[in-house]
């Protein structure tokens, strides 16, 4: 059974169509890149999967259920924007997450924070933008979830931290869990991905394994993306 299934997903904001009949399935144990230019519907799709938005028509199923309290227990979501309370300390956020999510793995969080030299006694507001992003990603990745939905996880961090984050994703790899990463930094994450989904104007323009795409096109996903979305 796919961990995530979207059927003819449609989302309209006023006169703007954000998603057009999007169909997709993600199997367990896959690391999937959700790729598309700005405004192609990546965040909308992810927000529908988390239950933050409702589709105008069509449906989403996560592990066989519609988005709701049950699926929130198995979905770990990294939003585009930070929601950390600036007055809180990193250690507060950790206990906050521990209270909220039964699958929160304290040991994992502590290890990742110390690997990135993040002091848990710092208040969130004293952290740089990049460090804030790292903290948020660590909180999200420290859950033992079934589906990780990461909306632009590597945009704001330096290349070294980017490598660390990608390695964290590899290290946390679990054959029963899937990771969806939305980004336009394709070059950096290509090696880590099993599959890619291209979104173009709210439609699924391509859904393929990375190796198949390279084999068929004789070029990297990054190069192919540039070709498909040439301005």
């Amino acid at each position, binding site marked *: 059974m796919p961990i995530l299934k979207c059927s003819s997903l449609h989302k309209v904001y006023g006169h703007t169509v954000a998603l057009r009949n999007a169909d997709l399935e993600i199997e367990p144990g896959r690391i999937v890149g959700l790729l598309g230019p700005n405004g192609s519907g990546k965040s909308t799709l992810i927000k529908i999967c988390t239950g933050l938005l409702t589709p105008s028509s069509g449906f989403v199923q996560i592990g066989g259920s519609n988005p709701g309290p049950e699926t929130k227990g198995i979905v770990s979501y990294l939003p585009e924007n930070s929601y950390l309370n600036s007055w809180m300390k990193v250690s507060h956020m950790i206990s906050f997450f521990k209270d909220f999510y039964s699958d929160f793995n304290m040991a994992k969080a502590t290890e990742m924070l110390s690997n990135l030299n993040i002091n848990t006694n710092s208040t969130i507001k004293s952290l740089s933008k990049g460090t804030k992003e790292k903290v948020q990603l660590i909180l999200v990745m420290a859950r033992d979830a079934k589906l990780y939905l990461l909306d632009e996880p590597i945009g704001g961090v330096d290349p070294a931290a980017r490598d660390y984050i990608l390695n964290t994703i590899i290290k946390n790899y679990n054959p029963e869990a899937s990771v969806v990463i939305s980004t336009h930094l394709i070059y950096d994450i290509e*090696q880590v991905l099993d599959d890619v989904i291209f979104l173009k104007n709210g439609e699924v323009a391509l859904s393929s394994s990375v190796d198949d795409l390279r084999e068929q096109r004789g070029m990297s996903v990054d190069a192919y993306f540039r070709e498909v979305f040439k301005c």
Partner: protein
Amino acid sequence: MTWTFTPDRPIYLQLQEQFKLAIVSGLFKPGGKIPAVRELAEDASVNPNTVQRALTELERDGLVHTQRTSGRFVTEDVTVIEKAKSEMAMELIDVFLEKMAAIGYGKSETVKIISEKEEVSAHANS
């Protein structure tokens, strides 16, 4: 191990070649244990499923075998390794000859300048 990947070909194929090279060159010893998939994936910064696929291909070639409880091992059969080695050599020679042909050297001319170069370097060393 250092890993390099070119953008034009599937990564599992490139991994397969690099594992093969490690076996043929003796970095992975005959009968030796191959690191776990996750370790290799982390080291090469690639997807674990891709590593898995590359190793499965090597199993098919007989260079690697799985022992159910203890992991993956390089074959102890040296003839299989030697065979892979000579196949790799042939491939390299083909590529080289193609490149030489592109700059206007026929096979016999190529062989000739190789032996001349060998003599020169032998001289220089003595």
